[in-house]
Structures are given as C-alpha cells and as structure tokens.
C-alpha cells in the first residue's frame, strides 16, 4: 500500500489538490473563492489526466527525425482530453463569474448566504 | 296442558312457541290478579293526570307481554318477551315526564338491557350446547357436547344468573330498582315490584331448572357464588330499608331483600326450598303490591313522601293502616300469612341440603332480615297508631276514600292471608 502510494505520488498529489478544490467549492461562502475552488478542482483533474498520458522517457507524439515506433511517444489522447477539459472549464468559469458580477451588482456582497437572507427578506 | 303452540318459526333454532306449565300458571295468576287490582286502583290514583291514553296502552301492553312471557315454551320466546317487557314497561316509569322520571326510566332501561345482554351471552353459548331450546324439566343440555367444555357452560349459566339477577334486584346491580320504583306512578310501582321484578326470578327458574338442569349447576362454583351474592343482597336490602326515610324507597329496598329470598330458595337446589321460593313469590307479590298502593294513597293524603309524615295517620285512616299492618305481617313472616309459610319452607329446605356453611347461614340471614323487616315496617304502623305525646295534627281534612282504593287493596290483603291458609289453591298442588 505504502509503496503504491510512493510510486504514484503524483496521482496522490493530484487527488489531494482535487479534494482541496472540492472543499473550497462546497464550503466557502464567498463566491469568488468558490470559483477559485472550482478551478483548483479542475486543474487537479487535468493534472491527473496528463499524468495518465505521460510515460517516463517518452516524448511528445510529434514525428521528429523520422522516429515512428510508438514506444518513443507518450499517449496523446489524455492531452487532447485535457485541452477539451480546459475549454469547458474556461467557459464554465466565465459563466460563473458573470453570474457573480450580476449578484454583486444587485446585492453588493459576495456572500451567498447573505444573499439568500436578503432574498427571503424581499419575500420574492 | 302439554300441547305446544308455535306462533312463528324464525329459523331452525329460533321459534316463537307457547305452552302452559306450572310455573306459567303461578306467574300468570300473580300477574293477572295484580294487574287487575292495580288497574282498578289506577282509576283512583291517576285521576286528572295527563297522557292517560298512553298510560293505559302501555299498562295493558305490559300485561299482554307478561302473559305471553309466562307461557313461553322455549328460551327464545321467553327472551323475546322479556326484552319487550322491559321496553314496554319503561313508559310507565317515565310517566311523570320530569327530569328525574326520565333519568330513572333511562336507568331502568339500561340496567335491564345490561342484564338482558348478560343473559344473551349465556343464551349464545347454551345454544351451542343444548339439544334444543324447549323448556323441559331437568334441562336440555347435550352432555356429549358439553363434556370437556364444562367451564364455558358454567360461565354461561353464571352470566344468565347475573343477567336475570339484574331484573330481580340482586346485588350488585340492584340500584335501578330503588331509583325506578319510587319515581314511577304508584300503580306502576306496584306492578313493577309485584310482577316485573319477578320476571327476573322466572328467568332464573327457566334457565336453570328448565334449560340447563339443576343437576349440572348443583355443587359448582356457580351455586356458591350465587348464594353469596344472594345472602349479601338479603342483608343489604333489609338494612338499607331500615335506614331509609322515604316510604316508597324503603319499600323498594324491601323488595330487593324479599326477592332475594326467592332466589335463595332456588339457589339451594332443594325441593322444599324450591316450593318455599314459589310461595314466597306469590306472597311477596300480593303483599308488596298492596303496600305500594297504600304508600301511593299515603303520599296523596299527606302530600309528602317521607315516613315521618305518617305519624298519626292511623287516627284518620285506620282501615288503611290496618291493611298496611296485615301486609307487613306477611312481609315479616308472621302466621297465618303466606310470608310465614314461605319462610318456613325456605328455612327447612335450606337446613335439609346439608351444604356446608350455607345450610345454617341461610336461615340465620333470613331471621336477621326478618327482624329488620319488622323494624322498618312496624315502626310505621306503631307511629301511625301511636304518634306520641308531642304529635300535632297537620290540619288536613280527612278525605273520604273511594272504593277503588279499598277494593283492590283489600283483595290483595286477603290473598296474602289465603296463600298462608290454603296454599294448594295457588301452588297447583305441587306440595
């Protein structure tokens, strides 16, 4: 077990980062901090994915010097996935930020609970 | 005499059928005489009251139903008429239409139904264990069915005894009697005490001697429990009557204790005691009916229900008080009245049975009760004739009483004595 953990320390780190992001997103009241948490979480996943594709000693799958054996290259699919993921995460972050701006304009606070409280008072 | 007349067959078990036997005759005799006397007396007592049409309808109705009940040939018929009797007699109790009268009537109805449903439970159970429901001396139990289920059958019998006991004023369910009798109009109280209460006794006779069979009950816990209840009732009735100040209520308590004599005679399961019970049945019916009538007259004359107000009554109405005295003699059991003979047989029969404890306890209780009876009835007579030095006349004018008072009471008084002198005339030669 311990050796497993040591061997895969990078994966372990990514999971720890994921957990940090997750808790941030879940528990923080401040919206901006939540968004930061979201990004941390996503980044952790990308790190994890990239690790999956990386094979020690291999290089990016671009044919240089006519080397064509697959053993020389890393797995390109995870990199593609990471790219897709980043696009998704960017758009989501953008949307979240725009929502946050709207809320801030209305209520002048970033505290979600505070906003809920105000809403209740408004009686909407 | 033995032919049975079936009016209607409800189903294979339940039929309305009628037959006349010795019990029927005794009961019929008492009922017809009492109702006739009470009817005549009503002409005096009920004069000027409201709702007379209703009164007469129900008065006659009760008589009809009681006659039918007397002649029942099976238990179902008896039960039908028994329930109807309760229903039809309740308007007589409530005739005055005061709040108390209605409450009393309600109490009467509910107690009676309570008893009736106890009976019904026994009836349900016995229906399973009897060959059929026709009254037969010695009982109709199907012994092959019963064997192994004696417990439940005895319980059913006990329930029946308790149930009929309610009507007969047996402790602990007697209290309707002292509520309903005083409040009913006097002719009604007379027949209530004389006849309707006795319906409970007849019920017990029919159930135990004609349906279950005395042999089955003799010597069981049912008999002992029953005897204990009866002895308590006798003592309690007399004692309470002794301390009671209201005349009709005193008579009602007296009824409780006197009817318990009859039950005592039955519960001993002894021929002599049985005959004594039947005789007490008649003697008490006549005497108590007359006493209630006289009480009614007294109440009208003095305008008070209290015993105290009877002081000196003998000065104005000696005849009435004499009649009261003679009836009281029968109640206490002094020769030559029927009461004496009845009590004699009861005591003899009880001593004959040889049941440990009960053979002597019964007579002792009867004697104590007789003393108390003398106490509560003769004080009235004494005070009536000898009001004492400090007696002041209440200033009421002496009223001339019509014959409708004297004739019925006189007839009943005579019968009280006749039962003692020529019992065979009434007892159908059973001796």
């Amino acid at each position, binding site marked *: 077990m311990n050796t497993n953990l040591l061997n895969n320390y990078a994966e372990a780190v990514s999971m720890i980062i994921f957990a940090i992001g997750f808790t941030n997103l879940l528990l923080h009241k401040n919206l901006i901090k939540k968004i930061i948490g979201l990004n941390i979480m996503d980044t952790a996943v990308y790190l994890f994915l990239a690790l999956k594709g990386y094979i020690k000693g291999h290089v990016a799958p671009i044919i240089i010097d006519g080397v064509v054996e697959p053993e020389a290259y890393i797995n390109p699919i995870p990199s593609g996935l990471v790219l897709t993921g980043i696009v998704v995460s960017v758009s989501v972050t953008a949307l979240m930020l725009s929502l946050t701006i709207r809320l801030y304009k209305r209520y002048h606070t970033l505290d*979600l609970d505070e906003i809920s409280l105000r809403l209740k008072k408004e009686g909407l | 005499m033995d032919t049975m007349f079936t009016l209607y067959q409800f189903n294979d078990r339940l039929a309305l059928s009628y037959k006349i036997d010795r019990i029927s005759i005794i009961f019929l005799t008492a009922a017809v005489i009492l109702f006739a006397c009470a009817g005549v007396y009503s002409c005096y007592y009920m004069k000027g009251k409201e709702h007379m049409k209703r009164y007469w309808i129900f008065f006659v109705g009760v008589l009809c139903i009681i006659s039918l009940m007397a002649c029942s040939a099976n238990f179902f018929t008896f039960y039908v008429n028994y329930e109807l009797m309760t229903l039809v007699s309740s308007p007589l109790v409530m005739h005055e239409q005061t709040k108390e009268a209605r409450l009393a009537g309600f109490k009467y109805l509910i107690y009676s139904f309570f008893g009736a449903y106890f009976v019904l439970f026994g009836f349900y159970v016995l229906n399973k264990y009897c060959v059929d429901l026709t009254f037969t001396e010695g009982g109709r139990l199907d012994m092959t069915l019963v064997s192994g289920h004696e417990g439940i059958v005895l319980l059913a019998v006990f329930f029946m005894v308790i149930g009929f006991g309610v009507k007969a004023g047996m402790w602990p369910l007697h209290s309707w009697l002292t509520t309903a009798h005083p409040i009913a109009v006097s002719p009604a109280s007379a027949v209530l005490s004389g006849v309707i209460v006795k319906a409970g006794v007849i019920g017990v006779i029919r159930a135990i001697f004609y349906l279950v069979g005395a042999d089955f009950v003799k010597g069981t816990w049912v008999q002992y429990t029953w005897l204990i209840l009866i002895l308590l009732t006798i003592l309690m009735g007399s004692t309470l009557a002794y301390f009671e100040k209201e005349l009709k209520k005193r008579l009602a308590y007296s009824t409780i204790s006197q009817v318990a004599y009859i039950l005592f005679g039955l519960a001993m399961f002894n021929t002599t005691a049985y005959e004594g019970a039947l005789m007490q049945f008649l003697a008490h019916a006549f005497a108590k009916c007359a006493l209630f009538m006289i009480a009614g007259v007294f109440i009208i004359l003095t305008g008070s229900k209290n015993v105290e107000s009877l002081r000196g009554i003998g000065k104005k109405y000696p005849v009435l008080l004499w009649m009261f005295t003679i009836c009281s003699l029968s109640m206490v059991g002094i020769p030559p009245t029927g009461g004496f003979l009845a009590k004699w047989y009861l005591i003899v029969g009880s001593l004959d049975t040889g049941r440990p404890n009960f053979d002597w306890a019964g007579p002792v209780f009867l004697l104590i009760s007789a003393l108390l009876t003398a106490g509560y009835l003769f004080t009235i007579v004494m005070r009536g004739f000898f009001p004492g030095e400090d007696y002041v006349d209440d200033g009421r004018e002496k009223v001339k009483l019509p014959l409708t008072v004297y004739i019925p009471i006189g007839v009943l008084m005579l019968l009280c004595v006749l039962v003692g002198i020529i019992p065979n005339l009434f007892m159908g030669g059973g001796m």
Partner: protein
Amino acid sequence: MRDFVQNFPLFSIILCLVSSSASSLLKGKAAKWVNTVLICVVGAMSLTLTFYCLAHGSFTYTMGHVPAPWGNEVRGGVLEGAMGTFFCLIMLLSMTGGRKKLLEEVEDTKQNLYYILVNLMLCSLIALVYTNDLFTAYVFVEINTISACGLIMIRQNGRTIEAAVRYMIMSLLGSGLFLVGICLLYDITGHLLMSNIKESVQALVESGQYGEPLLIAIAFMMMGLAIKSALFPFHAWLPDAYGYSTISSAAILSSLVSKGYIFLLIKIIYRVIGFEVVRESLLLNVTFVFAGLGIIFGSISAMREDDIRRMVSFSSVAQIGYIYLGISLGTQVGMVAAVFQILSHAATKSMLFISAIGLTDASNTSRKFKDLTGSAYRNKIAGMGFAAGALSMVGIPLFSGFISKLLFMQAAVANYGKMLPTMIVLAISTILNAIYFMKTVVRIYSPERDLYKGREGFKVIHTREQIEYTCTVILFIALNVALGLCSEPILELIGKGLEMFA
C-alpha cells in the same frame, strides 16, 4: 453500406447546434419557430430511429473514419430512440405551455437567447442519450449544465440568479466527480468508448485486479450524477431553481434535465460497468438508503411548503428518489420500473408545473395557497391539469403514476431483502403525496372567497383566451392517461431496449 437512418442521431445533434447558432441572428418570433420545428424534426427522427431499431436491432455509428477503440461513436437503440422521442415531446409541450409566461417574464431582446439555450439543451440531451463515448458524455453534461443555468436565470431577478449560482455550484461539484470517475476508469482500462470499457472491466473483474479503483470510479460517477440529478441529500439547489425560474424552464429542468443524467447513469450501469458488477458492489445499497430517505423527506418538505411551485419542486425530490429506488433494487424489473418512472414523472411533473402557472396567473400571480383558493374555477383547464397530475402522482389507476407504482412494487417483491422497506416507503410516500397534492386540489376547488372577488389580478381566464395553453394541457392529460392505460407496449419497448443495452 449503412442505412440512412443510422445518421439520424448525429443529424439531430448537429441540427440542434446549427439552429442554436442560427437563432442568435434571429428575432424572438423567428427563433420560436425554428425551435418548434427543430424539436419536431428531432422528435420525428428519434421516432423513426426507434422503429428502425425495433426492426433491425441496435447499431453503433462511428464518427468519421476512425474506428474503435480510438474514434468517437454514437449508438442507436430502441430505448435511446424512445427516450429521444419522449424528451422532444415533453419539451415541445413544455414550451407551448409556458409560451405566454415566457413573453411576459423575459425581456424582448432576450427572447431569442432563450430559444438558443433551449436548442442547446435539446442538443445536449440528445447527445447524452445517444453517445457511446464517456468523455463526450462529460462534455455534453457540461453543456447541459450551462444551458440549464441559462434557462434558470433568463428571468432576471435576484432569486433566479441566486438559484442559478447554487445550481451551478452543485452541478460543478457533480461534474467534477463524474470527470474524476471517468479518468479513473480510463486509467484502469485505457478506453473511453463504452463498449470497450465494458470488455476491459469484465476482464478485470474476472482476473480480480484493480477491484478498489474500479469501485471508487463507479462510486465517483454515481455520486456525480446523483448530485446533478438532485438525489437526496444533494437536493438543496432544486426548489429554488425549479420554483422561481420561468415556467417552461422549470418544466424542462424538472422533467428532462435530471432525467437525462439518470438515463446516462442507467447507460453507464448497463453499458460501461455491467449490471452484474454494479449489483455485486454494494453501492446500490447506499443509493437505496438515500433514495428511500429522499422519498420520505422530499414529501415531508413538500408538505410543509405553502408555495405551490416550491411544493411541486420538492415533490420532484421524492420522485427522483423513486427512480433511484428502482435502480437500487438491482433487478431487471426494477430497472424497467425506473425507466418507466422516468417517462411517467417527466410527463406528470411538467404538466403540474404548466398547470400550476395557469392557476397562479388567475390568482394575481400569487403562489401562496391561501390566494389560490378557488383558482380552478377561474382557470378551468389549469385546474383540470393540476388535478390529473395530482391523481397521477398519488397513483390512482388510469394514470401513469399507478403503473409505475405497480411496477415498483412488483420489482420489490422480486428482491427479498429490500422488499419490505421498499413497500413501506412506497406506501408512506403515497400517503404523504395524497396529503399534499390532494390538499392542493381541494384548495383550488374550494369556493372563491368573497374577499378576492373582483380584486385586481383575480380574474377568470377563459379557454378562448389561451388556446395554445389549453391544447397543451389536454395533450399532457392525454399523454398521462395513455401511459396509464397502454402501458403494455411501452413496457415491452423498455424491456427490449434494456436487453439491447446489455
């Protein structure tokens, strides 16, 4: 040479994407027509596909010329086709039913935006239904989230924005977990295509390797999807999101979005992990507990609401619980029940939302029960719709709710261990449903208080003023009764579809 019909899934997705881009150039009214036509066309294509698959069996469709295991694939089957058709139908009805409200509540300049979002939503739903690739599923889950968020906040007030934020946060948590699950699976199996993963998973299970990572991967994916489809206790975002958004959004969100995720989950269970594997991992027991709790607590929360829309929303929590309960029973019958419940609940809940808005419209847009008294007399058709929906929810024979209850019970009998809890939960939930739904029905059919007579906003809405709305509600009722009466062919269809999954 493949049949032309096999192109339909891809066509649907692309058509949706194209029309949503095109709508950004159009005015509101034109966008509306584009949207309507699009839904109809997609629905028709899915229907054709269903019949095609019934005749020829399922197929996989390789995108471009990259073959498996590298390329991206789409899969068509009976169940996919049927789901697609059904989603389109419900969406169409939800749109027509909420049209009037939409015009009132959304600014004119943003009308076309709304249709873009709806088109996108349809696109993602169809993609979720048809895709055979896990990562594609993830991408469309995110698209779905974004468009759903837009649908919620298109009616711009504080409540909806707040609801959208909350929805977004929970959804992101869910999709994050889902993504991690996918990554782990990829790590173990090296594949992203469902059928390939399944083969590897089976090999792994047989060899007994990687048991724990596999379990964790399944758990992550299930948990992610459970959060997104608002399984108790992750339902906190739901009442606000459904309760305050414009009515079409609420109807679509409640009846389609969460159902899309659940359908994806069923697909994963069957096509990615394998039913047996999932059943043997004890995860289903966990979902079973949460489903049961969800049913009870959802209903209790609904009971305590005095706001009709929020009440209906909370009832969704309970209904989602039903679906998960069916899945958790771990039997084929249970799964059929769950799928039927998806259909039944989608049809019923959207009808309830649409009817509720008719009732509130006739009551000065107040959603409080005390103002709704007698509203069924003011808006007759809405009253009828709500009553029918309520009866279906309670499970009265003739309506679809009865059949799903019947199926759940039958499924429960087949699983001895979970039998009694399931039955008791269902029975209690029926009672609770009866309490709050029938209370509302009685309320809306109670007499009008003189208090409200003639007061502004409490007006009688006649049928002729709302023909589109009336038709919608009647269609909804018909759909519901059809599900209730002609359940047999539908059940057969579901059964066949599930067989094709495996």
